């Protein structure tokens, strides 16, 4: 006799499905962008004081670790955009089978965009 507290002892299996993961990635990337945006705006606001302050920040952000983080942000923005376009398509265009493949392609495209960015800046 096994003892289990949670009713679904085995992880809910549908959470491995490609389209469910696409929806989760869309939500999580949106959350991450929402957290990032105020910081982004505050940084740009440094220009009010002086161009030198903004330049100081931009120099700090030359560090590779910061560039890696920026690559991550490019990925988040691209993946959120592509996921959103997928949603708009499903909701407004005729039904299309084969969305799983498109969702995977979208994820890969976002990753490619991020890598391209890193290739430029690193």
């Amino acid at each position: 006799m096994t003892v289990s507290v949670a009713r679904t002892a085995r992880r809910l299996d549908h959470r491995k499905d490609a389209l469910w993961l696409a929806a989760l990635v869309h939500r999580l990337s949106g959350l991450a962008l929402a957290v990032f945006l105020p910081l982004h705006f505050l940084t740009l606001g440094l220009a009010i004081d002086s161009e030198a302050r903004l330049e100081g920040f931009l120099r700090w952000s030359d560090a590779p670790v910061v560039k890696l983080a920026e690559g991550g942000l490019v990925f988040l923005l691209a993946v959120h955009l592509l996921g959103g376009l997928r949603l708009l398509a499903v909701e407004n265009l005729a039904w299309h089978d084969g969305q799983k493949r498109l969702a995977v392609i979208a994820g890969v495209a976002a990753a490619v965009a991020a890598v391209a960015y890193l290739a430029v800046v690193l």
Partner: protein
Amino acid sequence: MAGVPTEVQAEPKPSELKVSLWRGTDEGRYQDYAVPQRQNQTVLDVVTYVQRHLDPTLAYRFACRVGMCGSCAMTVNGRPRWTCRTHVAKVAADGRLEIGPLENLPVVKDLATDMSRFFEHWQQAKGTFAPTKTRDDPIEPIRPDSAMRIAASAAIECINCGVCYAACDTVRWNPDYLGPAALNRAWTLVNDCRDGAVPERLQAVAARGGCHACHTHQSCQAHCPTALNPTASIAGLKRRTVQAWLTGEITR
């Protein structure tokens, strides 16, 4: 004689299935049973075996056992399925089964859930036909190839089994959400030219918890045993309600 299949093995193979069944109500535990493995066996066969030979206190539901009524829906290895149409060989490759009641519904006992909320949501979505004619009126001519009838027919075979409702995470996270089955039915009626309650129905599905709460996870469509597509129906409702709002047929 060549070509004649041998009889299906009646005696159990030496191997056994390790079956964990949910016992209790919303609180409880999984209890293990050893069930003889047979050559052709559905998950419903397994549950029935336990109740008849091992533990008569087990509570579960079934009726037709041939995939027509939807009564036997349960969570099998993490997914909601019709147990009478799920072959053990397909889901328990390693000889292990974990069977629980459908998710997102309160448990009456063991594997049986209380489906009241599912049907209340159905009513809230105005999922009932509102007739406009009497028996003395001529029959409405409906062309089977009309766009509306094609849309309705694609979604009409729902037997209220609750699998989509159990699979949906938005149902899990949003207690107001009417759910895929209710909205799918509403869509078939919105496309029925004989129905007299379309504006009220559109207003109902445009309210809080209606079609706009759907995040298009598509778990409903992935799990429907009748291969229906509530995601597409709900997308249709989203478009239709926006149209209705633009023309003033419904209010925000």
